[in-house]
């Protein structure tokens, strides 16, 4: 399972890539492999305020709809336009072109509650 070293991870299988005060969010390779063929993605509203651990998106496979929980709180600045026409990008490139949304992190949010790659690797192999 691919677990890139430059990301932080939530126990609910979302990843976060920090870029100063903003971050990009997606789901992990482990998560997409569990879901298999993703056929629909519902993303949060741009400009909306979200809290850490709040369900903000839905990723749907043929068999089930899965809630996606925001790893951090803040304001949604961008959502991935490619996913409307090609939701399978989440399967084929979960850390790259399959990103879900970008967020401006709220001041005072605690990044320490997210996991380092080693801890996430241990979680998914346990």
């Amino acid at each position: 399972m691919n677990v890139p070293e430059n990301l932080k991870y939530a126990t609910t299988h979302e990843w976060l890539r920090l870029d100063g005060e903003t971050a990009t969010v997606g789901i992990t390779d482990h998560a997409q492999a569990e879901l298999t063929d993703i056929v629909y993605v519902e993303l949060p509203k741009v400009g909306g305020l979200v809290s850490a651990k709040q369900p903000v998106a839905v990723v749907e496979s043929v068999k089930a709809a899965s809630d996606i929980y925001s790893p951090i709180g803040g304001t949604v600045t961008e959502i991935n336009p490619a996913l409307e026409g090609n939701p399978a990008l989440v399967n084929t490139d979960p850390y790259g072109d399959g990103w879900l949304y970008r967020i401006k992190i709220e001041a005072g949010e605690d990044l320490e509650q997210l996991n380092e790659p080693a801890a996430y690797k241990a979680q998914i192999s346990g």
Partner: protein
Amino acid sequence: MSDEIKKTPLYDEHARQGAKLVEFGGWLMPVHYTSIMDEHQAVRNSLGLFDISHMGQFLASGPETGQWLNRLLTNNINRLEIGECQYTFLLNEQGGVIDDLIAYRYNENDYLLVVNASKIEEDFAWMNSHRDSSVEFKNCSDDFAGLAIQGPQAIQLFDLYFGPQYSRPARNEIKSIQCDLMEFFIANTGYTGEDGFEIFFPSQHATTVWNQILEKGANFGIKPCGLGARDTLRLEMCYPLNGSDLSADHTPLEAGLSFFVDFQKENFIGREALLKQKAEGVQRRLVPFRMTEKSPPPRPHYPIFKGDRQIGEITSGTLSPTLNIGIGMAYLPAEYARINEIIEIDVRGRRYPAVVEKKPLHRKGN
């Protein structure tokens, strides 16, 4: 009755071959091996192999069997020549569906009934409690393994595996044959809309036959397929699923399956209730629908609206891999259960348009 989850004789094989296993109707079954999309396409384009060992098999024998079955089942068993089978319903006194099943007449006075996995004990208890003492009636479900071989290449695979000694049964026919020292029931039936066969044989040979078919079918691109693909395939054909589209709360008339009810034959359980419903008019009907624009997949229990009024809920729903759009079925009030009627499906509080269609949703050549 045990609450333990049951496993088919192929459970270890499924685990070994990397299947994702989930509980279904009291059984631990593969939902997919690779993905539902892959397996669905394999059945539509080449060949798929399903473990259906969880399904139930009853054997009924004796000179009075036909008459007895005719009193319990809705279709007319007397229409069956030896080697023929029919789709039929087991109803309660209110005309509600206990189960849908296939009755196969494999000998003069010998019948095989194949029933749904989740209903084996209930069906057997019901039929046994109404038994004619001259009929020998056994629940042989544990003795049989079952496999469904489905796809355009099924005919070639049959000839490779069983031929040239044995010829294929024709559509809706069953044969009982001896092959490799065991007795096979081979029926030209299926739940996918493709050519294919369902075979039943002694359960101790399950792994051997499964692997032999995968080996011989490799030439045709055969894939092992799970219940996920089984559901998307049957839903494209609008075949109902007991527990979702069929239940004790709905009659076959409401389900649009009166073709399999013979009112002309002597009394059968549920007949009076159905005649009453016919006379009063069927108030709601099971219809298929297709989403008319991109939407989240429609799923069971999502509410259905006409304007501000909720008029029903989805009984079965999915994204159709072949049509690449959401599809499903629902019971709607008769006035809305019409082809081209526009309805709205509520998904997580937002409404998406859909249209009532004619069965089946998928036709060959799509």
